[in-house]
């Protein structure tokens, strides 16, 4: 009986520790790493999304954030996943009228947009990956803002990964001349 108690107590400690650790990773380590490994871009804001699990028949759980962008600025949007969950989430930028960009395009979307040709011309495996079905996954995209106003950033698990729960971090930065 004592053994059972010990096992439960150890499990309890482990779950408590993991839970705290997972939250901390999304809050600090992951955000910091994602925010400061951004090439020429200067960090402006993070979108720290805690993602819930969805049932296969339901739409994916989506975390949505609003953000004000300025005309004439070149913004960069990155998505970062915790270690072991790389490329499982996607970030989308949109406003009330248009969807502008996202970090994942399915095979069909990539084909319609001609992304495959774009990628093949200048393939950089460190910046994006091509899936067997032709889908394109990238860790960032740039957005040339031509209209000041309110925009939205959404973060969600990609199709096929929605039965996960965890966190992901979006980073907004601007590509300034100073860096």
């Amino acid at each position, binding site marked *: 009986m004592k053994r059972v108690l010990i096992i439960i107590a150890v499990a309890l400690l482990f779950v408590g520790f993991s839970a705290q650790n997972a939250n901390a990773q999304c809050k600090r380590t992951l955000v910091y790493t994602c925010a400061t490994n951004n090439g020429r871009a200067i960090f402006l804001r993070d979108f720290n999304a805690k993602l819930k699990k969805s049932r296969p028949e339901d739409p994916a759980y989506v975390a949505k954030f609003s953000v004000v962008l*300025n005309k004439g600025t070149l913004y960069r949007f990155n998505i970062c996943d915790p270690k072991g969950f790389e490329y499982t989430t996607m970030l989308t930028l949109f406003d009330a009228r*248009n*969807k502008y960009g996202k970090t994942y395009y399915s095979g069909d979307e990539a084909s319609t947009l001609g992304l495959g040709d*774009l990628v093949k011309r200048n393939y950089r495996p460190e910046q994006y990956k091509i899936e067997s079905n032709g889908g394109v996954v990238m860790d960032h*995209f740039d957005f*040339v803002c031509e209209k000041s106003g309110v925009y939205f950033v959404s973060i969600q698990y990609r199709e096929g990964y929605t039965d996960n729960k965890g966190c992901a971090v979006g980073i907004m930065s601007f590509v300034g001349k100073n860096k």
Partner: protein
Amino acid sequence: MNMMRKKIFFVFLAFVFVAFAACSDGGTKDNGEEIGIGGTLEGNNIAPVDEESMKEVVQNFPAPVEMAALLDEVGAPFSNQMLFPTENADDYNTSFKQAIALGIYSADLGYMNIYSKTSSIIQYLTVIKRLADDLRVGQYFDFQTLKSLAVSNENLDTLMFLSVTSFNEMDDHLRQHNRSHLSALVITGVWLEGLYLAAKVYEDVPHIRIAERIGDQKLLLEDILDILRKYDQDKNFAGTVKDLEYVYEVYKDVHITIIPGKPTMVEQNGTFVIKQNERSEVTINDQQIVNITERVNEIRNKLISL
């Protein structure tokens, strides 16, 4: 044996509790807002209460470095003369004045950082620390690290990261302790100083991009006024609302038109770049900019002479 069963039951209960806590959000802080992606994009369950709209305005507020970066990009030289003087900082002896001043000095700090002007940064950081301490939010700023990063003129990303997260933590703290009005004043200060810097630069460098950015401030001014009006039962807030409405009078005739377009994507050096193609056109003339400059100047001078 019964005692042992009880123990197991309690340990099990605790286990369930912790597991449940691990599955829950751990609070809604920074968790965004959920939408069903199958639904429409507009107005998804956005029914903010006052505190939520306050949080949204504060978190959405463009960083002071964005305005400074624009001034740098159009080739405007740095001017020490434009900075809000630090000599009077000790005289700001109410939380109202301290919060606005904190915003103003933060905007100046962003301006100095973008231009890599490290000589005055310590002075401004010291003033900011004093004001933050007076407002009892100094614990959220690691001033030693901020100082060393600012002076070394490297790791701008780390500096920005620490500044933004510190500011968000400060804002969370203020909201949790029913002091949101101070956050509102801080962003008012940031906004006012950013507009002042742009307007002053425009006098010597009348670049179209600066004119447009000054015109765009109409949208942010509307947000700020909405927030400040919630507190206008206080005479200081009422005075600030009146001052900003005086600026808004000029903005009433500034028009922003949207020219529709569909986004396109190109690939540049391994990065996908999205060109919006839909654009806004700001109709603002030089006289309106002069009027805005004069009015912002007046308000700022009033603050300096408090």
